[in-house]
């Protein structure tokens, strides 16, 4: 578990009172951290230099070494610890972090060149305006970067942080990947110019930096960030440029995080800005930056949105094993920086809407599988109540069944393919529920009409954000097969699903609910099909199954079909 060293007196000043060692121990215990060691700055230095221990003199600064949980990146600096403890003690409310209200046109831009995808694809950025540094704050800022690099960044392989004095550089910025000899700059702490390839050699004898060289040294292109005058901001993940180095006088900070893991890059950036925005002129306000890719895709970073989840009171109580009234539970949640609002859940039970702030990246789900499973079960019941019979189909199918027979083309970017199938029926893992459902209809041709069946199950898709390179997504699909196509009935079922998941029907363009747009997918009849757009994203489609597809599956009667990704509703 990581240990954070903080000056005791500075910490007590931030907490607003002094504690005896026992009292502080007790506070840590209640919160869930541990005071591991009490030492002094000089003692640490002596230890590093392998000198003899001396009795600490009175004027030496006392250092507390505090052990924090490995997933609490928000506790890796004094600022974070102090804030968490103050909220825990009820001294401060949970801060609301906000993005500065500047229009997209006024935002600084970071243009990403496509070559970066070869070596370090992602970058996220932010600006802290009107910051006031003193020596302690400055050291804390640098230390946090180091700790994050050590922990979640996995020694800079996943994410690397670069911080710059914004007043020494000028946007728009570019993130590129160039052959090493083409990159030339004065790196931090140096006075002369180096080419990037020379720099690699130079740092082979640097105790601190030599461990990071392997991350890029064998690549034909190195990642590099420039400003508009081609000043090098940094050569990630190795070193930043001397030109834009931060000093005690810096007022405006530009932070960039380059990464091979976008999720972690966001967590790291959020940690940096939430911890230090307390020193901004407009406290807790962060200025956003627009990141623009070559293909036109762009996003605004950082993403400081609150993560919301619904949790049942009885679930919380049964997990703990102690009966607590709702307001007590809410108070406890608030103490841990989880803003809890009382709410009445669907089944009339007491629950909470919990807003997880960007500082609590450790909160993923209130135990993922329980929530997903219960949600799935509830949806299944609603579909069965609408008159549909549940089927359970295979994940494995033939390549043809998954693509050609559905009139779909394989763009080679979705399907997980087996290397050693015994027969064609085990060639791929399904990327949609459609082939199984249609096969089921085909095998029940003589069943009295109309046939109404559904499945809620996982599809498997390639996914670069996962360590194995693929992931499951839960989908719901239903079909109506009868003398008539049942198009409006399937449409009605789509509406019903949205109704029971509490999503309002809105006009096109409105991101607060769902709307339907005409679509043009090959597996459906032209003009009799649509996409379901929920909160601005396409979550599913429905339509009359194309007669060619019906023929491919040996189905003699018209069918209408729908399929949605249900994880989108969680």
């Amino acid at each position: 578990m990581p240990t954070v060293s903080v000056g005791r007196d500075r910490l007590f000043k931030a907490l607003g009172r002094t504690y005896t060692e026992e009292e502080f121990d007790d506070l840590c215990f209640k919160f869930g951290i541990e005071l591991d060691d009490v030492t002094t700055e000089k003692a640490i230095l002596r230890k590093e230099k392998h000198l003899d221990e001396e009795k600490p003199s009175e004027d030496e600064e006392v250092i507390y070494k505090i052990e924090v949980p490995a997933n609490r990146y928000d506790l890796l600096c004094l600022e974070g610890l102090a804030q968490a403890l103050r909220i825990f003690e009820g001294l401060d409310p949970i801060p609301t972090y906000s993005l500065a209200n500047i229009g997209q046109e006024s935002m600084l831009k970071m243009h990403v060149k496509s070559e970066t995808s070869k070596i370090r694809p992602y970058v996220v950025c932010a600006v802290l305006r009107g910051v006031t540094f003193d020596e302690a704050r400055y050291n804390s800022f640098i230390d946090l970067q180091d700790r994050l690099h050590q922990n979640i960044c996995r020694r800079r392989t996943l994410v690397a942080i670069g911080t710059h004095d914004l007043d020494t550089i000028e946007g728009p910025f570019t993130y590129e990947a160039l052959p090493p000899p083409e990159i030339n700059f004065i790196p931090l702490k140096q006075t002369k110019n180096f080419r990037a390839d020379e720099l690699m050699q130079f740092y082979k004898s640097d105790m601190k930096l030599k461990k990071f060289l392997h991350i890029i040294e064998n690549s034909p292109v190195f990642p590099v960030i420039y400003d508009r005058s081609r000043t090098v901001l940094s050569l990630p993940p190795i070193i930043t440029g001397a030109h834009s180095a931060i000093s005690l006088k810096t007022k405006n900070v530009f932070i960039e995080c380059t990464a091979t893991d976008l999720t972690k890059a966001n967590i790291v950036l959020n940690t940096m800005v939430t911890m230090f925005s307390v020193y901004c002129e407009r406290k807790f306000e962060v200025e956003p930056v627009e990141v623009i890719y070559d293909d036109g895709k762009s996003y605004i970073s950082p993403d400081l949105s609150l993560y919301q989840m619904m949790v049942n009171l009885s679930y919380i109580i049964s997990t703990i094993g102690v009966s607590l009234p709702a307001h007590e539970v809410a108070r406890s949640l608030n103490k841990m920086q989880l803003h809890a609002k009382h709410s009445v859940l669907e089944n009339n039970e007491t629950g909470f809407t919990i807003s997880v702030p960007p500082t609590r990246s450790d909160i993923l789900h209130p135990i993922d599988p329980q929530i997903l499973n219960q949600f799935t079960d509830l949806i299944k019941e609603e579909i069965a109540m609408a008159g549909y019979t549940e089927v359970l189909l295979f994940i494995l199918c033939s390549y043809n069944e998954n693509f050609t027979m559905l009139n779909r083309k394989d763009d080679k970017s979705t399907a997980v393919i087996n290397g050693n199938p015994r027969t064609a029926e085990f060639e791929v893992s399904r990327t949609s529920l459609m082939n199984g459902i249609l096969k089921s209809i085909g095998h029940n041709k003589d069943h009295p009409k109309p046939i109404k069946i559904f499945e809620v199950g996982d599809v498997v898709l390639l996914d670069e954000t996962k360590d194995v390179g693929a992931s499951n997504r839960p989908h719901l699909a239903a079909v109506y097969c009868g003398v008539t196509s049942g198009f409006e009935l399937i449409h009605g079922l789509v509406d019903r699903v949205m109704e029971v998941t509490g999503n309002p029907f809105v006009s096109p363009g409105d991101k607060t609910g769902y709307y339907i747009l005409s679509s043009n997918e090959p597996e459906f009849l032209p003009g009799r099909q649509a996409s379901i757009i929920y909160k601005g994203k396409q979550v599913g489609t429905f339509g009359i199954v194309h007669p060619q597809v019906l023929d491919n599956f040996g189905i003699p009667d018209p069918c209408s079909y729908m399929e949605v990704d249900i994880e989108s509703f969680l």
Partner: protein
Amino acid sequence: GKFEPSIYKIGCTQAIKNKWIEMGKSAVSRKVQHVDDRVRDLLVQIQKGEEVSAQDIDALKRRKLISSQIWKGFSVKKGPNYTPKRKKMATDLTREHLQRGDWKEIEFKEYNFLAKGQPTDGGCLHPLLKVKRQIQLIFLQMGFEEMATNNFVESSFWNFDVLFQPQQHPARDSHDTFFLKEPSTTRSLPEDYVERVKQVHESGGYGSRGYGYEWKREEANKNLLRTHTTAVSSRMLYALAQGKFAPKKYYSIDRVFRNEAVDRTHLAEFHQIEGLICDRGLTLGHLIGVLEDFFSRLGMSKLKFKPAYNPYTEPSMEIFSYHEGLQKWVEIGNSGMFRPEMLRPMGLPEDVQVIAWGLSLERPTMILYGIDNIRDLFGHKVDLSLIKRNPICRIGLN
């Protein structure tokens, strides 16, 4: 005189036959003075209602001179419900009856209770998933937490190596496992942990001798469709070991994949039920105790345990239950204690043990519903009527 042609025909033929007349060129002449017309006599007799011999009746019938008629007679008398006015029987109670108030007078036509009613129109849930739900409830009632199993794609590292299954083991053969062409290898693994796993395979440690072979990283990198949910259990236990240790009870019920030959009771994919408890000082006694509790909730209280082998558990036990219907002992699952070679490299404290057990979801379901071909239960060949007829699952209800 003149005769009707039909009458003339009858009479003429017979008259000639009996030599009563002679057909001349222009006229018919009489041959005999007196005619003994037996046929006429018979016909007159029948007309009078007198009895005639069966022979004669046949002859006359053949000549189509007579035809038999059935004459039914009924004797009618007043019955108990006799009423001068006709009464109509109702088949249903309608709104009109209620409004008019004449429901008080109507009589209902007798309903045939030997026939069945009209089938209901609703939807229903799948039999196998109903059993899954009941078993989930049993785990939850026993205080178990669900593991996140929503990843079919797994690396050989988590599926095999972490579990101390050696790289040359037959189960890692392409005969039994679906290895992937795309994505063929995993993107990342926790490097320091990989080192420790490599060590324990090659040279042992933690009191073990290891397997003494050269452990290859490329083998561990190979992606596959998970062959058991124990791969997920490995990830959960490893995650548990990274923080401050706390005892846990986990379960999962989800799909696994085997590249084996398929037959009546085996498919390439099926559902595995897995339960595990991680705590300090657990023993085989605890395992047996938990198994007895768990299986009794499934309705199986007569259990027997047989020593067995499993690459990642030691000791291992096969679980048998006595089936009253079949009158024999049937294997219902597998269990054991995870090996130190698996637990210690994860970083779990030395006194922490993990007891675990597993069984398939399909097998008990097939036994429960008397289904002998797995394709009748799972997949696209399932008859929809079977799904509709399937009763509620009572597992765990007694």
